């Protein structure tokens, strides 16, 4: 593997407390040197990148993507989804298990993680917590852990039954990985296609109440408490795509109590409200749904005060013909890998004054820690050479037609973005070059 020199950039590496000019040398897929400007002058390298005026940061990590392979490759493949990831500055993604068939055995997990799937960036996966994600019988956590599972989830669906979730948390604690929960009490959301409230009433759509999310988060927190006191284990609950102020408040309290809870917020939930549905725009339909302004503001506040641990996209590609339907019939989900950084910088950095270092942390160091990825999420010497180089000040407009994803279902087509990715490097290979 050829050496790469990155000169004249501003290194933002929150895990190591660095926000300063640094030059980097990448060798054999690893970070070989991080030095003050000028020190590496004269080092021979196959490629030298001039990062003057640019941010050099750990490659972004997304703990929540849907890559649709196997089974729905007309929406996305591992190759196309990870190419979109690379274009968005991501060097690592974690694939959800709701493929067809569901990723619930070691053999399926190994097939997904096989190099012949041609991922453009580093791929990890969370297999199903229950067989077929049916919420009844746990999958083989030990075998799946050995095959590379970084957590367990029935994403797209909740683990609804108390005793099943309890068993999953216990088994995951023993395997030292999190259970990643899609918090939705589906008994309260049947037939619903958006957030409950005034907009849903006006549009004549059935709405999902806030309690459908918060009640499951509260239940899971009670289970954590029970397990800690009775089993002597310390399970890790990761709450996916938190969308309501109420669920976030429950997480805040649980953290204060000392329980091991982490959570993610999706860019659409800190950027948009249910007003974005407009006249039934199915590109604003996802689950959990866009909520009201006070919820959006609570997501921003949680990212600012640290209650929200990371940003995750819930990248969920769907074909055009699936979204060109009656709102209630269209599937949930939007693409997000190419717009996450642009929205985080626009809404949180420029809009809320959150530091670049915090944003980089929310999108690299923090998610790496949640799923315990050794050697990723920071750029210390010896770590993987996973790097994103971006122009933090650049303003641009997202054009869905240019996407690397196989699908274009985004509410951000034509939206203003802040911060342009110039290069993405994964384990020392340049996997994306921007202009």
């Amino acid at each position: 593997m050829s050496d790469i020199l990155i000169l004249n950039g501003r290194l933002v590496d929150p895990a190591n407390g660095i926000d300063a000019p640094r030059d980097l040398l990448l060798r054999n897929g690893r970070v070989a040197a991080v030095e003050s400007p000028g020190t590496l002058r004269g080092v021979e390298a196959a490629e030298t990148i001039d990062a003057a005026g640019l941010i050099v940061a750990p490659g972004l990590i997304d703990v929540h993507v849907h890559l649709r392979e196997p089974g729905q490759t007309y929406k996305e493949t591992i190759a196309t989804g990870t190419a979109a990831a690379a274009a968005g500055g991501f060097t690592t993604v974690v694939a959800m298990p709701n493929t067809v068939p569901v990723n619930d055995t070691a053999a399926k997990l190994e097939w997904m993680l096989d190099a012949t799937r041609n991922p453009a960036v580093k791929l990890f996966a969370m297999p199903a917590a229950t067989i077929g994600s049916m919420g009844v019988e746990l999958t083989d956590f030990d075998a799946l852990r050995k095959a590379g599972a970084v957590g367990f989830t029935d994403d797209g669906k909740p683990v609804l039954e108390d005793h099943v979730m309890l068993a999953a948390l216990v088994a995951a604690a023993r395997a030292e990985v999190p259970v990643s929960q899609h918090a939705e009490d589906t008994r309260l959301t049947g037939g619903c296609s958006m957030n409950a409230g005034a907009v849903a009433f006006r549009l004549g759509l059935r709405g999902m109440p806030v309690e459908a999310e918060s009640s499951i988060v509260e239940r899971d927190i009670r289970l954590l408490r029970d397990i800690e006191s009775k089993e002597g284990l310390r399970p890790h609950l990761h709450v996916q795509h938190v969308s309501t102020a109420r669920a976030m408040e429950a997480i805040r309290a649980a953290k204060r109590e000392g329980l091991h809870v982490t959570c993610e917020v999706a860019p659409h939930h800190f950027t948009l409200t249910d007003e974005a549905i407009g006249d039934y725009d199915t590109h604003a339909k996802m689950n959990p749904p866009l909520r009201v302004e006070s919820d959006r503001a609570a997501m921003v506040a949680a990212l600012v005060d640290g209650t929200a641990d990371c940003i995750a996209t819930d990248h969920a590609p769907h074909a055009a013909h699936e979204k060109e339907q009656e709102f209630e019939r269209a599937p949930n989900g939007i693409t997000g890998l190419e717009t996450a950084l642009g929205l985080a910088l626009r809404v949180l950095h420029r809009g809320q004054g959150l530091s670049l270092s915090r944003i980089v942390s929310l999108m690299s160091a923090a998610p790496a820690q949640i799923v315990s990825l050794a050697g990723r999420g920071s750029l210390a010497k010896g770590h993987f050479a996973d790097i994103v180089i971006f122009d933090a000040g650049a303003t641009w407009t997202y054009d869905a037609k240019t996407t690397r994803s196989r699908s274009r279902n985004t509410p951000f087509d034509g939206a203003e973005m802040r911060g342009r990715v110039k290069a993405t490097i994964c384990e020392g290979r340049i996997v994306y070059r921007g202009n």
Partner: protein
Amino acid sequence: MTETARTQSARYATGSLLSIRDLSVEDVSAILGLTARLQTMHPAERSAILAGRRVALLFYESSTRTRTSFELAAKSLGATTTLVSDKSSSIEKGESLKDTGLTLRALGAECIILRHPASGAPFVLARETGLPVLNAGDGMHEHPSQALLDLRTILTRLHGESSATSVSAASLQGVTVVITGDILHSRVARSNALLLPRLGARVILCGPEKLLPKEALGLGPGVEIERDFDRALKRAQVAMMLRIQKERLAGLELDLADYIDRYQLNAERQAACAPKALVMHPGPMIRGLEIAGDVADGPNSAIEEQVAHGLAVRSALLVRALGKSVTV
């Protein structure tokens, strides 16, 4: 409101009527004027207006009044109509709304009248076909032509025939309309509550919490909620009754005897609270449930006139959709 109007004009064919919010007060006034003009026209003259034009009626839900009145309206204007229903077409085989619309367009349809159980379906059809689409009722969302015919009925009965030819923001000043019943599932209630206050009316929504959530107040200014039917009726110049939509209740449980006791418009209640109020119902009505038969048939009832106004107003909407100018 203005933002909606702007996006509408950019994304949907002129003449579409997808939501009552698409129409400004001036638009409503023009539609009423056109309605009146078409009514006074000689039938032979009227039947030349849309001669040779093709109108498709696409119905995914059953309908008596709306379908028949749109069809008769189109025919009286000389247009050719075709009816496609979900039960006797390729829709049954799984054809999408988009493809059904594109097929109708390929067959020469110049305007599609759509009734659909999914809220927002007319927006999909209008976006995908580029044709003018008239919303003939979409799920729990809206029924804009019903609101227009209700408006014409109210104007005619309260202010006389001649007053129904134009409106302004003050036309219904001092008029209180009580809409009672299954507001949650009612597209008629939404369209009326979005239209009537813009013409100066006060709209009181009345019904139990289960059928009338407080979010209904978000429909806009000029709308209020009153749970006590008698109290609401005492303020009413117009009492609009709605059917309980059993097909949309989706597991919601309702004590019908209690409902009848609290919300049925019957002769005693009418005499005690609103002896002069105009009685309206968009149909279909269930006599003995939300309304007593003798009230529906009584002298204050405008229910059959509503149907007649439907034919007239829908004629105007078709002329508008197909871009014909008629001298008013």
